[in-house]
């Protein structure tokens, strides 16, 4: 696939601003360091040239910002979407969360984004990173220049990428990829093979590290309620921290159930978790179960599709079958 460069994207976006096709551009902005890229709205060619970036650290999925941006009623906005982002984009459209005609979607190719957490695990003193294709060269303050295998620096969601295909776009930069035979259910299968006690301990250990910052919810493109039940003081569950040891588990379990059939497995929840809890595994379990009981379904693959749990089909699995939890089905 043709490597998408920052300059190609700036030139494309600036052209669309100049022709007044769009009034602003939702993209990624360069920061102080090699990895601290921030989602940002650009209004002019100058702003783009001064700050826009497209590199190995543009992991942030921009599609959820379209809800807020299109509500500003300020003409059409250009958004850059990586293949996995386009699934969230479609799912948001299915849920009628923003008007399609106010967005110009520019699909950009992606070879997997780097995980700065994994880079910092190698060295805390990295000051620059250079992508050399299969390897990555990192410059450090104390250990000189290190050459690392690129594959090992990818986050789980990119190591097990489900699709290089853009399922939504107005225009595509670079050639489109394919839906991949990903091994993304491997980790779920490992959990299924555990005994109930082992699995309980696994999640107990993981979720007890939760600090209730709510970053997973706030970044999640499927979490778009105007007022979350966990922020509503009248709900009786709006605690900011764990009042008892079940609290944070309830939060994550309720959230996982709430996004069933709508979660596209974009992996943003795990990317933003400051405690590095593998939250995406909860959602993947649901996706895997849905595939098992109701036939393969990928949320966001098309606009307007009905998720199996809100659709009725005479061939649907019987509730008794579902109650086995899927562990006996492959």
């Amino acid at each position, binding site marked *: 696939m043709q490597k998408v460069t920052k300059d190609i994207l700036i030139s494309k976006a600036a052209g669309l601003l100049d022709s007044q096709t769009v009034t602003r551009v939702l993209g990624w902005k360069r920061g102080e360091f090699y990895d*601290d890229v921030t989602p940002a709205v650009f209004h002019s060619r100058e702003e783009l040239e001064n700050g826009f970036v497209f590199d190995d650290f543009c992991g942030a999925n921009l599609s959820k910002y379209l809800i807020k941006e299109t509500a500003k009623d300020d003409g059409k906005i250009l958004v850059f979407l990586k293949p996995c982002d386009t699934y969230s984009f479609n799912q948001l459209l299915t849920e009628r969360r923003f008007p399609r005609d106010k967005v110009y979607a520019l699909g950009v190719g992606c070879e997997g984004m780097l995980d700065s957490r994994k880079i910092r695990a190698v060295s*805390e003193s990295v000051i620059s990173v250079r992508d050399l294709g299969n390897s990555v060269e990192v410059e450090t*303050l104390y250990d000189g220049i290190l050459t690392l295998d690129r594959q090992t620096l990818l986050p789980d969601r990119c190591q097990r990428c489900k699709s290089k295909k853009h399922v939504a776009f107005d225009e595509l930069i670079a050639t489109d990829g394919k839906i991949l035979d990903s091994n993304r259910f491997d980790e779920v299968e490992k959990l299924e093979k555990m005994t109930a006690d082992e699995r309980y301990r696994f999640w107990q250990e993981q979720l007890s590290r939760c600090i209730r*910052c*709510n970053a997973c919810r706030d970044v999640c493109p499927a979490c778009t309620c105007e007022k979350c039940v966990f922020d509503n003081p009248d709900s009786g569950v709006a605690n900011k921290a764990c009042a008892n040891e079940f609290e944070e588990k309830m939060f994550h379990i309720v959230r996982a159930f709430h996004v069933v059939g709508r979660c596209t497995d974009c992996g943003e929840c795990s990317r*933003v978790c400051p405690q590095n809890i593998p939250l995406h595994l909860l959602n993947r379990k649901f996706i895997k179960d849905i595939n098992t009981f109701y036939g393969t379904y990928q949320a966001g693959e098309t606009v307007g599709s009905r998720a199996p749990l809100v659709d009725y089909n005479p061939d649907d699995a019987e509730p008794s079958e579902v109650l086995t939890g899927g562990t006996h089905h492959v």
Partner: protein
Amino acid sequence: MYKTAKEKLPAVLDAISRYFSLYLPVDYEDGAVFEAYSYGKTLSSKVNTVKSPKEYFFPQTETLVNFKVDGKSLSIIDPRRESEDFVIFGMRACDVKSLAILDRVFLSDPIDTYYENRRRHGIIVSMACSKPAATCFCTTFGIDPSEPDGDAILYLDKDTLYLNIKTEKGAKLLTPLQGIIVDCEQNEVDTQKNLIRERLKKLPLSSLQTTTFSSGKTDDFFSSEVWETLSDTCLGCGSCTYVCPTCHCYDIKDFKTADGIRRFRCWDSCMFSDFTQMSHGNPRTKQSERFRQRFMHKLVYYPTNHDGIFSCVGCGRCLKSCPINMNIVKVMKALGGEGNGKQ
């Protein structure tokens, strides 16, 4: 000053743990974590833990009081107990300094007895930073990681472990460490101190200044246009707040238990939509206002109330944990203008 061979570190930890509850940073695949020592655990090799150790003095959740209901009678159960001495081993200069910032809040009248209890009994063994991280900027706030505050300071070089006892509380470690450490000269760590100071000068954020900010400057920054731009894509999560060693806002709530009520307090975040919720709602209705609150608190409001001291210690945790990579360095540079917050 005392010293021993570096390979004696496990013996040092073990000896301390026989006398005191001991907490130290331990490495995990996901990053370093402060946790209780048990035999075999080794000191982290990282500069900083993901979360700060403030929770040992100001826990994320703690019970303030229990109410027990029995028929028509209500009894009040005070959960406070005098803490026993405990040791936090390997705290960095930034984290130690953050306690001085929390002290000004919790130990001023009316004194927070829950916090005071833990502060009185916590023995802090700080650790010099021989390899400051790329995201460190403690020197911006006048902190010297070659000579951290603390009850005792630990220096580790290639072969030797040095311990500089600074306070009476720190001297409590001498009993457990008898026979393990021996006297040495103060200047034996000078080489390491100088190396650290040289390294600090080369950090990417070494020239970040605070000159623009200080007490009483609310009007200079409050109406700035940059708040809207900086906070435009802020998710409003509490990541920055909860990893921050100096953030200290909390909420108090009641939780219904089987036989009464548990009144607890927990960390709160000014980034949340229901922060300081009153009957009319939240006084800060937009995310840009909440975002502004957090940084104005660190750079202007706290200094205004506390003799010009900033409530940031430059640990760099928010630089690493923010989902959108917005942080106090970017805010300082955007607000500071040329030659001030800018490098």
